[in-house]
C-alpha cells in the first residue's frame, strides 16, 4: 500500500517553482512513533484521495519545541521555533495542517510573536473543510452504527476551543457518538501533556491514563477516537492495562475516515 503514497517535500515543490496548497506538519510522533506513523499515513491517503496539493518539510522539519517549553526550557523552545520559522518563511509557507494538537497549538499561538505567521489547522478541521467543500466524501462504511467516543485532546479542546470538528466527522461516519463523563470543556487529560509523556508520573495512587480509560469503559464504546498521537498512546496503554484490547480499539479520526473507505 505504501508505494501508493505520494508525499512530496517543500524542496520538491521549490525545485519545480511551485507552491503547495498546504504544508503538512508531520511532527515528531508522526515521524518516529510506530503507532503515530500509521496516523500520518492514513492522513496522507486522505490528502491524496482528495487531491490536495500538500508538501512536508521532511528532513527540514524539527521539533516545534512544545515539550521543552512546557517543561520550562524557554531557551530550547525559542531556538527550535526560530529555526523552524526560518525554514518555513524561506519557503513562504502560508497554511499548515498537522495531526498533532501540541504542534498545532505551538505553531498557531506561540510562533506568531517570533515571526512565524501562518494559518494553522488541526487535521480534523482540515478534513472537515474538505468534506464541506465536497473534495472528500465519506459514508458510514464499516463504522456505521458503531459506538464511538471521542477523547478531547487538551491542546485541541480547552487550549483552542475546538470541540466540534472531530465530532462532526464521527457523525459523518454514521456512527453512534457517545460522550464520556468528562468531555469537551471538562475533558480529562490523558496524562501525557506538559512533557509528562517523557517522564514517569509523580507518586500517586493511579496513572492518569487509567483514570481516563475507566471513564471511557464506563460508557462501553467499541472505539475510542483520538485526535492526538500522545493521547492515542496513553489510551491504547490504558486499554491494554485493562485487558480490553479484544473489545475496544483506539483510533485516530483520520484512521477512522481512511479505514471507513478501505483506503
Amino acid at each position, binding site marked *: 500500500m505504501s508505494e501508493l*503514497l505520494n*508525499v512530496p*517535500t517543500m524542496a520538491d515543490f521549490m525545485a519545480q517553482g511551485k507552491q503547495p496548497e498546504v504544508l503538512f506538519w*508531520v511532527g*515528531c510522533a508522526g*515521524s*518516529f512513533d510506530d503507532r503515530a*506513523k500509521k496516523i500520518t*499515513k492514513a492522513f496522507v491517503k486522505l490528502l491524496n484521495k482528495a487531491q490536495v496539493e500538500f508538501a*512536508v518539510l521532511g*528532513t527540514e*522539519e*524539527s*521539533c516545534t*519545541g512544545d*515539550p*521543552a*517549553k*512546557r*517543561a*520550562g*526550557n*524557554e*531557551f*530550547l523552545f*525559542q*531556538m*527550535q521555533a*526560530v*529555526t523552524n520559522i526560518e525554514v518555513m518563511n524561506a519557503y513562504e509557507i502560508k497554511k499548515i495542517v498537522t495531526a498533532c494538537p501540541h504542534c498545532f*497549538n505551538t505553531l*498557531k*499561538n*506561540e510562533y506568531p510573536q*517570533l515571526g512565524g505567521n501562518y494559518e494553522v489547522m488541526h487535521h480534523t478541521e482540515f478534513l472537515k473543510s474538505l468534506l464541506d467543500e465536497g473534495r472528500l466524501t465519506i459514508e458510514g462504511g464499516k463504522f456505521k452504527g458503531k459506538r464511538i467516543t471521542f477523547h478531547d485532546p*487538551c491542546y485541541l479542546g*480547552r*487550549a*483552542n*476551543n475546538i470541540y466540534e470538528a472531530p465530532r462532526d466527522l464521527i457523525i459523518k461516519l454514521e456512527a453512534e457518538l457517545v460522550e464520556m463523563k468528562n468531555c469537551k*470543556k*471538562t475533558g*480529562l*487529560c490523558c*496524562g*501525557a*501533556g*506538559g*512533557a*509528562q509523556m*517523557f*517522564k514517569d*508520573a*509523580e*507518586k*500517586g*495512587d493511579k*496513572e*492518569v491514563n487509567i*483514570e481516563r480509560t475507566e471513564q471511557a469503559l464506563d460508557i462501553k464504546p467499541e472505539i475510542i477516537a483520538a485526535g492526538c498521537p500522545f493521547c492515542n498512546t496513553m489510551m491504547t496503554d490504558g486499554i491494554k492495562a485493562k485487558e480490553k484490547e479484544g473489545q475496544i480499539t483506539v483510533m485516530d479520526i483520520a484512521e477512522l475516515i481512511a479505514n471507513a473507505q478501505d483506503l
Partner: protein
Amino acid sequence: MNYLPNVLFAIALIVGVGYFTRNVKKLIRNIKLGHDVDVSDNTSQRWKNMTMIALGQSKMVSRPIAGFLHIIVYVGFVIINIEVLEIIIDGLIGSHRIFSSIGVLYGVLIGAFEILALLVFIAVIVFWIRRNIIKLNRFWKSEMTSWPKNDANYILYFEMVLMTLFLVMNATDVHFQTMNSGNFISQFIAPFFNGLSETALHTIERTAWWMHIIGILVFLNYLYFSKHLHILLAFPNTFYASLKPKGQFNNLEAVTKEVKMMMDATIYPATSPTDDTEMPAKFGASDVQDLNWVQLLNAYTCTECGRCTSECPANLTGKKLSPRKIMMDTRDRLEEVGKNIDANKGTFVDDGKQLLDNYITREELWACTSCNACVEACPVSINPLSIILDMRRFLVMEQSAAPVELNNMMTNIENNGAPWPYNQMDRINWKNE
C-alpha cells in the same frame, strides 16, 4: 438632644472604613510587587468578561447546585446592602428608617430584602451542611485544614448572624410592624417577642440594629484576612485575566533577545548600544516578586472553592499537586513578604525563604500536565498553570533541575530535533515503511 449615639456611630464608621482602607492600600502595594504585564489590549472584551463572569456569575452555574445557592447569597449580599445606606444615614443624623417616607415602595424594598435575607440564611445553612456534614471532597483536601477550614465556616456564621440580626431588627421594630408593609418574613418572627414591654422591644431592636451595622463593619475588615476577598477582587481579576487561547503560553522576551543574538552573528551584546532593556535578574520564578501582578492578584482573589483541584488530573489520581494550593501558597508567601516589608520600614529583607521549596514543592510542579482543566474550572478566571510554568522555568533555566528523563528529552531535541533519540535525517522514512 443626646448626640452620643450619632458620635459613636460616626466613630465606628470611620474606624471601620479607615482600617479597611489601610489594608486595601497594603493589598495594592503587595500586588504591585509583581512584574508589570501588558493588559491594555481589547478593553471591550475585558469589560464583557467582567460583566459576564463576575457580575453575571456565568461560570458559577457550571455546577448547578453550588451555582444556584451562590447566586442567592451574591444577589442577597448586593441588594441587602441598599439597606445599609439607610442604616448609615439613620445612624449619622439620628433618624429612624429615613426612607420609609417614600411610602409603598419602601415596603416593597424591605419586603424584598426580608425574603432575600431568609433565602441567604437557608443557602448559607446548605453551604455549611455541604462543607461540614456531607463533607464534599473538595473541601477536605490536605490544604484545607486549620485556618482555611475555619475561615470558610466563620464566613458562613457571620452571614447567618447578620441575616438573623436584620430580621430580628425588623421584627422588634414596633413602628415598622405597625406599618404592616414589607414585613413579609419578620411578621412571623414578631410573635416570638409577644408580651415584651415596648421598652424591652425597643432595646432589642436597637441592639440588633447596632450589632447588624457593627457586624457589617467587622466583616468588611475581616475580608483582608480571609479568602472572602473574592467578593471584591473577582471584578478586577476577571477583567485582567488573559484573553489569549488557553494553550498559548507567553514567550519570554528576554529569551527572544538572547536567542536572536545567538542566531545572528552580527549582533554582539557589547556592540549593541540600543540595548536598553536589562537582562532579568533571573528566568522564571522562585518567589512571589518574580511573578507578574496579575498572578498575584489571582492569588488574593482565590476563595479556595477547590473546583480547580477537583478537575486536576494529577490531583484526581493522588498526586500532591493541587492548583488551589498553588494559589493559596502564593498568597500566603506574598502576605509574608508584605509583613516583612512593613516590619523593615518599606524594604524587603531577605528572610531565607521563598515560594519554591518553602511553600510549593518541586514534586507538585512536575506533576502538572498543563491540561488547563484548573484554568477552565475557575469561576473567577484564576490561572494556576501560569505560576506552575514560571516556576518550572526557574528550575530548568536557572538551576538545571529538571527530572533526569526530561533532561534526556531536551538533549534529544537539541541534538536531533525530536524528543527521542532518532536522527533528523530519518524524519521522512515513514513514507517508505
